[in-house]
């Protein structure tokens, strides 16, 4: 039975630019059920990145209410935000953001280090996760020894390692060619079928339509189209 895990009520984000205040998000209302695969579609400058940052607890809204799996985002204490990110959010970035001098395995282990998991368990979990994304034989490779698609799969393994509530992917195929991009999308579908909640940010309409639900964002407002 799907439950509501994400609720946004009238989220506003303003930035102060000198004397002017520019409003990036103009009262966003959004709710997400567990197991959904949503794409946030919008051109650049539409506010989709800002929305993603707020969803991912990287940024705080100016006003409005945001609940994620029963937690209310309140205050701005960095330590608390870091703990929520660690537990609830799995980030996937357009340009992978792997630590270039660490092996695939070490990269996947990184979030576990911050959650204080002991060494042996870290290794086991990270190795399992790399096998799951199909890189069981490349655990000790450095990122530069892997192809773009493989690097993104390492990043996905890293995002999944703490078993987050939401997988938050920002243009996950933006830096990949069509074929490897396709493989990454297949992996997303597979994860979603296993029950993982995924929010994917993209400007690519075709890609957005692969999700079960598309939320368009334009000029700081959202509108939904259900396919």
């Amino acid at each position, binding site marked *: 039975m799907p439950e509501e895990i994400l609720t946004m009520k009238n989220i506003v984000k303003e930035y102060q630019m000198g004397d002017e205040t520019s409003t990036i998000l103009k009262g966003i209302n959004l709710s997400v059920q567990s197991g959904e695969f949503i794409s946030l579609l919008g051109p650049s400058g539409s506010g989709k990145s800002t929305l993603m*940052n707020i969803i*991912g607890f*990287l*940024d705080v809204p100016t006003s409005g209410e945001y609940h994620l799996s029963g937690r209310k985002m309140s205050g701005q204490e*960095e*330590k608390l935000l*870091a*703990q929520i*990110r*660690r*537990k609830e959010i799995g*980030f996937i*970035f357009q340009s992978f*953001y792997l*630590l270039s*001098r*660490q092996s695939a395995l070490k990269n996947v282990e*990184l*979030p576990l*280090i*911050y*959650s*204080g998991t002991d060494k042996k368990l870290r290794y086991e979990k990270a190795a399992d996760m790399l096998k799951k994304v199909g890189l069981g034989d490349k655990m000790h490779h450095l990122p530069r020894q892997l192809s773009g698609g493989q690097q993104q799969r390492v990043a996905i393994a*890293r995002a999944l390692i*703490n078993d987050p509530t939401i997988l938050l992917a920002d243009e996950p195929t933006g830096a990949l060619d069509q074929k490897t991009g396709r493989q990454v999308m297949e992996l997303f579908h597979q994860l979603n079928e296993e029950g993982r909640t995924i929010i994917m940010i993209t400007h690519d309409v075709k890609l957005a339509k692969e999700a079960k639900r598309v939320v368009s964002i334009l000029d700081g407002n959202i509108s939904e189209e259900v396919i």
Partner: protein
Amino acid sequence: MIKENFLMAWDNIINSKMRSFLTSLGIVIGVASVIALITIVQSVTGEMMSQFESMGADKITVIATGNPLKSGLTTSDLRKLEEIPNVTGVAPSVSITGSAGKQGILLDEVSIMGKNEKYFQQDTTELTRGRKLTALDMDGHTYTCIIDQDIEKAVFPNENPIGQKIMVNGQGYEVVGVRDTDSSNDVMSGINASSTSDGTIIIPYKNALSLSGSSTYSNVDVFLEDTNLSDETTSDVETVLDAAFNYKDDSYKIVDLGSILDTMNSMQSLLTTLLAGIASIALVVGGIGIMNMMLVSVTERTREIGLRKALGAEPAQIQALFIIEALALSLIGGAIGIALGLIISVVATLIIGTTFSISWGAIALGIGFSVAVGLVFGWTPAKKASGLKPIDALRSD
């Protein structure tokens, strides 16, 4: 967590070896110079001090230069000195150069020293044979002497000198003891015995006085029971001497080894502090180098910091990462600096010719300094890193 941070810091240091090395170089030089200077100063002055101490900090030496009316101290003056409280004995010292020998052998550059039995109570020089001079030898008509090993070798090769006669300035003396040559433990005899001398013969002081042609003593050691009371005793000695010389100025000088030792002690610590202070300027410069490198590193790794934060690193964890890296850099520098400083010290003490003694205090200071430098100069960059907002950090290119 700390272990992981150390591994990550180590990884960063290893990955930019040249830069890390150059950054640590300031600390290396600073710590090495602090350690080398402290160790060298302590080895040199420590040896000087122990020499001085063995010369006798428990005595006051009176050098009576005299005046036209009275050329030195008389036997009755010595008796008055002996009556001062806290004085255990008074030992006049007469030193002349003369000849010594027996039939067929003549040494004409012999240092002849007149001493009394009190001298031998304080003297630490080992006798290799025979006995010391006692009160019974001091009546002025007993001709007994102690020779050193140089004289023994020259005059009595391959025979036992004890009981034999030796001619000292034409007078026959019976050898009653033989002592070590090199350990002239008395500061005055050390100065008086010229290095070109053929050796040293000690005879009763009255005999030496008549050989010297003088009737007064110009060099007297006053031995103290309790060195803590040396100030009081010194002023008592001054009172006696003032009276002896009829209150004429500049008739005598008092050399108090204890107070010389105190002065040397405070000079040594002053010198050590001064030199260590100068050397620690290098440490501060080294620390600024580390801070500079860490600030550059924070800027270069802004995106990495953002990523780590997105993955759930708390500000304190980011701060720890950078402080540990600064600490590791300065500790590596410190370790190399300690090794280098010790090598310099060993070489320097070899060249100077003193014994090298490892100064644990200096090493502790070196480690302490590097930790402090790492913490102090790593703090600001680490704070800067931990305060970065994750979105800003992730967006930076």
